[in-house]
């Protein structure tokens, strides 16, 4: 009898899950940072309430997300690699690109700070790391964070130290990269969101600290990209509706209200 009621509960759950999926759904191609920080989980119910859209997402590296957009596999893109985005639009894969929020990157490293980068600008910090040949962990996965790090090396007038023995290319997500940095005593570039989540988990025992932050070059701009009409099968109408919500005062406020460990992570900055 108990078994039977358990089965009934399960069936009820499945039926419920099935009926909940009846609202119009929209598939967002996005990056791991928006999903891993919990921002999308936080926004999804608000979006459902305000627009009737059920937001689903595929969270991958920016490189893969753009590829999904190119192939019309998602309805809308939410990414953070401005240079790659502009190229994407110029090549005709995207209709338009609207900036709607930013967070920032920080350079973290071992508290001992062997290359003495504390308080330096991003460019100066990387030069110091290179001069000292201190360990530096790179995402190495062509993600938005990875692209930014590569451009920081170039902006500092340096070559990306692709084959240097002290340059550790992880090829994994930010959280794993932070863990590897802590284990190896390496510097790394991280988005603040993942850093806050990581710090909360390690309760300050990781040995890593923020060493360089606030530089304009470390701002991480997120944009929404609409896909062109040549993507005939996707939900253009729903995509416009979702974009409008993110740019509206309600959506912008919801972004500002999202907190991780009591700290605001993303700053809304849609053009008025």
């Amino acid at each position: 009898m108990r078994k039977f009621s358990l089965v009934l509960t399960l069936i009820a759950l499945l039926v419920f899950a099935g009926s909940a999926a009846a609202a119009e759904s929209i598939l967002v191609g996005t990056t791991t940072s928006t999903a891993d920080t919990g921002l999308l989980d936080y926004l999804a119910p608000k979006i459902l309430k305000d627009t009737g859209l059920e937001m689903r997402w595929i969270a991958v590296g920016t490189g893969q997300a753009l590829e999904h957009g190119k192939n019309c596999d998602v309805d809308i893109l939410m990414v953070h690699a401005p240079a790659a985005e502009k190229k994407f639009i110029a090549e005709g894969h995207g209709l338009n690109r609207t900036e709607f929020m930013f967070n920032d990157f920080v350079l973290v490293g071992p508290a001992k700070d062997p290359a003495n980068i504390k308080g330096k600008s991003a460019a100066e910090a990387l030069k110091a790391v290179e001069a000292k040949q201190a360990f530096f962990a790179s995402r190495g996965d062509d993600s938005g964070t990875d692209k930014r790090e590569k451009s920081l090396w170039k902006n500092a007038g340096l070559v990306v130290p692709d084959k240097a023995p002290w340059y550790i290319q992880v090829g994994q997500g930010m959280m794993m990269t932070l863990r590897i940095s802590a284990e190896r005593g390496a510097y790394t570039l991280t988005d603040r969101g993942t850093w806050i989540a990581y710090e909360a988990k390690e309760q300050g025992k990781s040995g890593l600290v923020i060493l360089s932050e606030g530089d304009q070059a470390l701002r991480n701009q997120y944009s929404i990209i609409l896909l062109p009409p040549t993507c005939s099968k996707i939900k253009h109408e729903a995509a416009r509706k979702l974009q409008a919500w993110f740019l509206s005062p309600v959506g912008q406020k919801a972004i500002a209200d999202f907190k991780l460990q009591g700290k605001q992570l993303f700053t809304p900055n849609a053009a008025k």
Partner: protein
Amino acid sequence: MDYFSEGLAKAVQLLLSLDPETFSAVWATAEVTALALAGSLIMGLPLGFALGHFRFPGRRAVRLFMDWMLSLPTVVIGLIVYALFTTRGPLGEWGFLFTIPGMAVGLTLLGLPIILTMTATAVESTDVRLTETLLSLGADRTQLLFATLSEARFAMALASASAFGRIVSEVGIAMMVGGNIKWQTRTITTAIALETGRGEFATGIALGIVLMLVALVVNLFVALLRRRAGS
């Protein structure tokens, strides 16, 4: 920071509280595994029988090819299936990308060579006299097929168990073709990958324990069926 004890406690908690996210992932895993295993068996058993039973030119080459396919990396299968199912791909019309059936196709490609080669080997090693006896008794081709398959049933059960184990624990195809969409294509393994990426190692271990429990239930069920069948 003891991931194991924390993970174990969390697994119990997820199961007892009937956590909807976990059960959604368990259900997606069950659905996709059942479809892929069915696909592998429906194609793999007759083809495996044919490959093991009949002697035809090029048979060795086919055997070699199928053995080779056992080593096909799952990420590559994932990429191939993605390339086929992407909206602009040759089979984009089907709308299979980021869906359970799409994942099942990819996982069938993983399971099929296992069923096929193991069935072929089992059929090859059944006694040749069986065929001769059956034919002399006037069995037709269909009867011969079923008699041989019945003779090789334990080897085939083993093949199914191996394919099940590979399919249920697969993550590359599930991630690439399924997209790890919450409430839809998130399986236990892609959920583990997600939690690991988030740094929630204990939750990842908890989900791993859940997957092992699901696999145990399936194996117990199969063992029970086997006993019922009187062997």
